[in-house]
């Protein structure tokens, strides 16, 4: 009887495996699945990965779609801005299937078919939004005036609105500029303008350099003169201090002004009599008065 049991277990296992293959299907992490019963989609698409039950064909059918974010870029085309500048804009998007039940009948589950529709919607939205902005909204050094992100968001909401009204079952995750360029002929004009700008910068650099250099030099000269003037003033003050100090000597001279004046005169006389001096005397000047009369001990009567 043991063998009987084993046979039964194995048989049952085979039946279970066979039944599983018929009644169970898997949904992978990256997939979304819809189940149709006699061709009609049932309640909700399955977005969570795992194993699910279904009735075998021909009662129920399972369709699986890639629910990952798809990249898509449109082709570049020339578009005028609000201030009539032609620019060439390329945008990229990331989109995903938001509702597989809507998506499936519209595009038969084909991603390229969906992207063809998406491209025309994107182009219309892009042209409309670009035409409502000036070029300075696209490029601007002032963050307040730069509307780069705003323009992207406008295009995105245009596209999303179009997708929603048509029930394409597609959701845009993000949309951004990939390229913003100018038509080929315009690039030459820009080059001419850039060259002129560079030339202006060169001139102003030269002028600026010369001006600053001469400013620095003249400031240095001024400073030097100031320093020397201050020093001269200080020197005069210092000498004045010395003279003030010498006034205390006057007090000493006051004891006998005659002697003081006499000594000063004597000094001055000595200093003034240098080698180049020619002296002319007569006999009254000492010591030459010796020539006329020698001193005697008796009081002299002669002058």
């Amino acid at each position, binding site marked *: 009887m043991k063998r009987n049991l084993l046979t039964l277990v194995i048989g049952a296992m085979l039946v279970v495996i066979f039944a599983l293959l018929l009644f169970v299907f898997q949904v992978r992490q990256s997939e979304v699945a819809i189940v149709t019963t006699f061709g009609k989609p049932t309640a909700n698409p399955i977005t969570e990965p795992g194993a699910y039950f279904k009735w075998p064909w021909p009662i129920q059918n399972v369709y699986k779609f890639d629910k990952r974010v798809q990249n898509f870029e449109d082709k570049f085309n020339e578009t005028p801005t609000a201030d009539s500048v032609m620019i060439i804009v390329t945008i990229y998007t990331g989109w995903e299937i938001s509702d597989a039940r809507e998506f499936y009948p519209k595009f038969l589950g084909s991603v390229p078919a969906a992207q063809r529709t998406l491209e025309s919607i994107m182009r219309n939205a892009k042209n409309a939004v670009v035409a409502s902005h000036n070029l300075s909204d696209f*490029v601007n050094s002032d963050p307040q005036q730069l509307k780069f992100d705003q323009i992207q968001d406008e295009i995105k909401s245009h596209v999303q609105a179009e997708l929603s009204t048509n029930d394409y079952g597609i959701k845009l995750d993000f949309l951004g500029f990939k390229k913003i360029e100018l038509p*080929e002929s315009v690039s030459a004009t820009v080059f001419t303008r850039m060259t002129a700008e560079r030339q202006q910068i060169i001139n102003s650099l030269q002028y600026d350099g010369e001006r600053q250099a001469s400013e620095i030099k003249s400031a240095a000269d001024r400073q030097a003169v100031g*320093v020397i003037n201050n020093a001269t003033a200080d020197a005069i003050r210092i000498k004045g201090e010395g003279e003030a100090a010498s006034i205390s000597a006057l007090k000493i001279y006051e004891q006998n002004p005659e002697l003081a004046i006499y000594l000063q005169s004597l000094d001055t006389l000595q200093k003034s009599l240098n080698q180049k001096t020619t002296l*002319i005397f007569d006999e009254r000047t000492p010591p030459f008065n010796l020539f006329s009369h020698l001193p005697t001990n008796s009081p002299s009567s002669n002058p």
Partner: protein
Amino acid sequence: MSDKHDHHDHDAHEPSSPEAQDAGSQALSEALRSSFAIVKIVMGLMVLAFFSSGFFTVGPQEKAVILRFGKPVGEGQKALLNAGLHWSFPYPIDEVVKIPITEQQIVSSTVGWYFTTPEQELSGEEIPAGTTLNPAVDGYVLTADHNIIHARATLRYHIDDPIRYVFGFASASNTVQNALNNALLFTAASFNVDDILFNRVDEFREAVQQRVTDLAEQEQLGIVIEQCDVESRPPRQLQSVFDQVTDARVNRDKALIDAHSYENQVTNGASATAVSIIDRAEADRTNYVASITAEARRFSDLLPQYESNPALFAQVTFVKAMGEALTNVQDKIYLSQRADGQPRQLRLLLNREPPAPKQETSPETPED
């Protein structure tokens, strides 16, 4: 198995012909038993093969994720299997997804760069540029002041959430690349040309990195930005005029440096002169005060002598001073008194300097 069972029953029902039956049935049972053993071995092998088919290897440049009934096994980084030998349940229970990712991912943005091939990049040669830029071939970015420059970037990142990165995006690295393109475009649109190229190069790079980090977060790419390198240059068509600007800038800087060195020289010279002026004044003052003091002291010393006999003192000191003076003086002329006691008249021709010419030697002629 059921066959054998039947045979056994049969054996029990007919015991009448034991010899022939026995031999035949024994042979049959023998054959069945051995064939059954073979079947068992084969089944065992098949089970073994089934389970061993679950072994797989992961190469060094890739990772793997096991999907059990379609759902990844493990969360976040733990879901990733590294290089080596691994085992999973065979299909349809488990499914192995191999992902060609390394520790560090790299993407580059070249939408803002002119057309060039990797060979030209390597050799460093440049194909001469035309006078215009064709948008279909040559990329560039527009700066905030409506200028055209070339810019490109390389982004290094690692994958933080592999499940999101691999199963959330049809081509995640393309999405990262577009985020980088957009970051470059956006940042260039908010910077002026000179800031990008010269003045705020680092700031520009950081702004690009910040923008791409923000986009990666917004788009939930499941990555962590490690590094972003940005290279930018003026259009090749304008290279020479841009070089001239650089030259002009260098010249300007040189002129300023020269001016500053002149400034140092002049001010240092002035300071030195000022110091010497003040030093001299100090010395003069010291000397002056010293000489005054010395004279005052001399006065004080002489005062008692003078006061004792002023006339004598004056006479003596005067004669002494005259004596000293006369030793120095070259020309000394003595005029004696006239016999009649009248003063003599003296006429001087005062033209002593220069003394060289002989004609002028009309010396002072003492006259009567």
